[in-house]
Structures are given as structure tokens and as C-alpha cells.
């Protein structure tokens, strides 16, 4: 259903581009006391996608929360994207999403219909993910925001950290990059309509199918590519794992037209934040033009999974992924730690 409000006009920054930079965040959290609990298996330390808490010998609780301002104008689509993005953290841990709560900021400029449409989109995605919505919290705010707090479950031996890649692993990516530049250009009416339509489709696509397939194979590590971009999340995986990640730019799936938009400087502010945070740890082949490098720092909203698969399983995993996700690709590999966290080759 059409509503008259253009959601992005109510927001200053869009989607995951609104995320506080990784560098700023660790400085803010730095002074706070950290309490240990031996049941907490994944916490702050490794900048992982979700926290993991052991409930029993065969069950861990996986928890995450994610919300942001509108990245698209249509409230229903925004609801779908925000929910898919929040649920993604659970899938990136290799877990199953079970319980979700709405986190909602309603702007006075949204009418009741817009709020209902937004929530309809969120509920639809939560149900599609296999979760139920059990409640939530709604406040008034000038800028609308939406997301979910999600709880999921996994077996203690079968969840995936972002810091356990091994040398030899093959790196797979399950959605194309370029979502940040494409949505930025769309705000100015400069995005190709077909490329923009593809970006929206990808943003509202759950990472559930990729997760379900991935869990049938030997995978050592996984994260989702969101606000900190491929290279930000790639650095976290490489450094947490004590490996170097080598990527081949030409193999990285990309939305059509994204490179030309980057060349024209239609880059979101988050790209520069991500670059400032990660570039001292990344070596990019000088043959790669600036715009191609920029795209690897482009903040993604509801991006794909970055999977480190055991070499003997990687080919079969990719084939299985390609059955439902044709653009999924092997984009590089983990090698013994060298001078750089991530190396990008043409």
C-alpha cells in the first residue's frame, strides 16, 4: 500500500551508514568495566555479530540488537530491510532465530498507516526467518528508526565466530556490494532504477538461506558484511583469526553501475569513516583504481555473509549456495598472517 510520506526525507543518515565508526565505538567502550562470566562464550572482545551465552551442554543463547533510520522511502520496505538486517546477525553466527522484539522510534510526521506498514514489513521478515515477535518498545523521536532485538539458539559446538578463520580457508560472499553508493545516489535521483531495485531486493533478502546451506558444510568462521563494509568486517575477521585475508577484486559481486557512481563521488559519509578505520591495515594493489577501492569500504545495509569455508568443502558449498543465490562467489582465501590484515589484488 502506498503512503504519502517519504521515509528517507525524515532521516539524516541512511541505514547502516548511520552506524558510529568502529574506531569511535571502541574508544567509547574502552573505559567501561567488563564483567566476566564463564558461560559467556562470545562478548565484546572480538567485535562479533552477536553475543553467545551457554545455557546448557547442548544449547547456547545468541543475542543481538540492530536498528537504524530509513534507507528507503516506503515504510513497508523499510520494515522488511531493518528486520532482515537485524536477523542477519543471528544467521552470521550460524544460529537459528527464535524470538524477536521490535525497537521502534516513531516520528510525528508518520501517520498510523505508515507505522502499521513498517511493522507489517518487520513481522513478515521475522516470520520468514522462523522467529516470533514477542513484544517491543516504541518511543517518539524526530527521526524514525526501526529494528529488532533478536534471540536465537545454537549448539555450543555449532555456532560460528567471526574470528576463527584458518589459513587455507576459502572466503565466500553471498550478496553483491555497492548498496551504500546505490542508495546514496538514489537519494539524489541518480541511481539507475534497475540497479536500485536490485539493491532493495538484496537488502530485504534474509541471510537465512545462506546460513542454512552453510551449516551443512565445514565452515570455520562467518560474519555479515554491514556498516563497516567488506574491508572493515574483513579486517575484524583477519585480525581476530590471526590470518591475512587475500581478496580478488574482480571476483567480488557488485551491483551494476556502482563503480561509475563511486567514480562520480556519490559516496556515503560512512565510506570515509570505514576507510579511515581500516585502510592502515589493508594493502590494495595500486593497479586498482580509487573508485574500486572505495566500493570495498562502502557501508552495506543488510549485506551478505562473509564465510570462511574449509578448503575441501568450499567448492561444494559454493555450488550449493549458487543453487539459490547465483551471485554468491568465492572472493579470496585466508593465508598465514603477513604484514597486512587484508590484501586486495585485482
Amino acid at each position, binding site marked *: 500500500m502506498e503512503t504519502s510520506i517519504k521515509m528517507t526525507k525524515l532521516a539524516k543518515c541512511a541505514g547502516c551508514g548511520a552506524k558510529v565508526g568502529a574506531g569511535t565505538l571502541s574508544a567509547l567502550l574502552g573505559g567501561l568495566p567488563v564483567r566476566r562470566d564463564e558461560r559467556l562464550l562470545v562478548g565484546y572482545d572480538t567485535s562479533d555479530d552477536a553475543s553467545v551465552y551457554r545455557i546448557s551442554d547442548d544449547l547456547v543463547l545468541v543475542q543481538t540488537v540492530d536498528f537504524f533510520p530509513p534507507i528507503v522511502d516506503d515504510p513497508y520496505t523499510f520494515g522488511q530491510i531493518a528486520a532482515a538486517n537485524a536477523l542477519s546477525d543471528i544467521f552470521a553466527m550460524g544460529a537459528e532465530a527464535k524470538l524477536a522484539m521490535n525497537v521502534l522510534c516513531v516520528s510525528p510526521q508518520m501517520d498510523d498507516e505508515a507505522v502499521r506498514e513498517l511493522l507489517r514489513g518487520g513481522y513478515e521478515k521475522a516470520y520468514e526467518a522462523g522467529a516470533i515477535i514477542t513484544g517491543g518498545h516504541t518511543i517518539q523521536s524526530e527521526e524514525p528508526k526501526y529494528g529488532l532485538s533478536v534471540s536465537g539458539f545454537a549448539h555450543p559446538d555449532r555456532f560460528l565466530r567471526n574470528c576463527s578463520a584458518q589459513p587455507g580457508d576459502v572466503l565466500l560472499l553471498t550478496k553483491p556490494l555497492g548498496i551504500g553508493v546505490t542508495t546514496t545516489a538514489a537519494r539524489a535521483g*541518480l541511481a539507475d532504477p534497475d540497479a536500485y531495485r536490485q539493491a532493495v531486493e538484496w537488502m530485504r533478502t534474509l541471510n537465512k538461506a545462506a546460513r542454512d546451506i552453510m551449516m551443512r558444510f565445514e565452515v570455520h568462521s562467518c560474519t555479515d558484511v554491514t556498516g563497516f563494509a567488506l574491508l572493515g568486517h574483513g579486517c575484524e575477521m583477519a585480525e581476530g583469526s590471526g590470518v591475512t585475508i587475500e581478496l580478488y577484486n574482480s571476483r567480488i559481486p557488485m551491483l551494476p553501475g556502482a563503480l561509475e557512481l*563511486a567514480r*562520480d563521488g*556519490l559516496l556515503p559519509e560512512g565510506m570515509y569513516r570505514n576507510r579511515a578505520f581500516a585502510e592502515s591495515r589493508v594493502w590494495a594493489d595500486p593497479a586498482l583504481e580509487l*573508485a574500486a577501492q572505495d566500493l570495498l569500504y562502502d557501508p552495506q545495509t543488510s549485506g551478505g555473509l562473509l564465510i570462511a569455508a574449509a578448503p575441501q568443502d568450499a567448492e561444494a558449498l559454493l555450488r550449493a549456495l549458487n543453487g539459490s543465490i547465483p551471485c554468491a562467489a568465492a572472493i579470496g582465501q585466508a593465508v598465514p598472517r603477513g604484514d597486512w590484515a587484508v590484501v586486495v589484488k585485482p
Partner: protein
Amino acid sequence: MNLPVIDARGLACPEPVVLTQQAHRQHKQFAVLVDNKVAVQNIARFCQNRGLALTVTEENGEYRLEIAAK
């Protein structure tokens, strides 16, 4: 000669680069005022891509970008 001046101060991306694109269609030579580094960098990329000469001067956190067809 008085350069046409586009005031893009206070605007968030992508507005400054969009105004620069529009000005580029109308003028061979013009100036853009911006007040943030991201806008400067985005406009620099635009100029590089379109083969335009760019001169940047900074004063008190505000930038004047003079742009000319080469």
C-alpha cells in the same frame, strides 16, 4: 570575471556533489562552497572522473572549490 558560486554549506552528501554536477552542466568554470571534508573528497572524485581541474582553499573549516574544464 565573477565566477558563479554554488553554496552547498550545511548540506549533507550527496547534495553537494549533486549541485556540483548540475553546475558543471551549466558553467565551464565555477566555485562550490562546502563545510565538510566528505563533500570535498566526493567533489574531488567527481572532478577527477570528469577531467575537471580543481583548486581547494580552506578557511575556518569551510572550503572553496574552484572547478574548471581543462
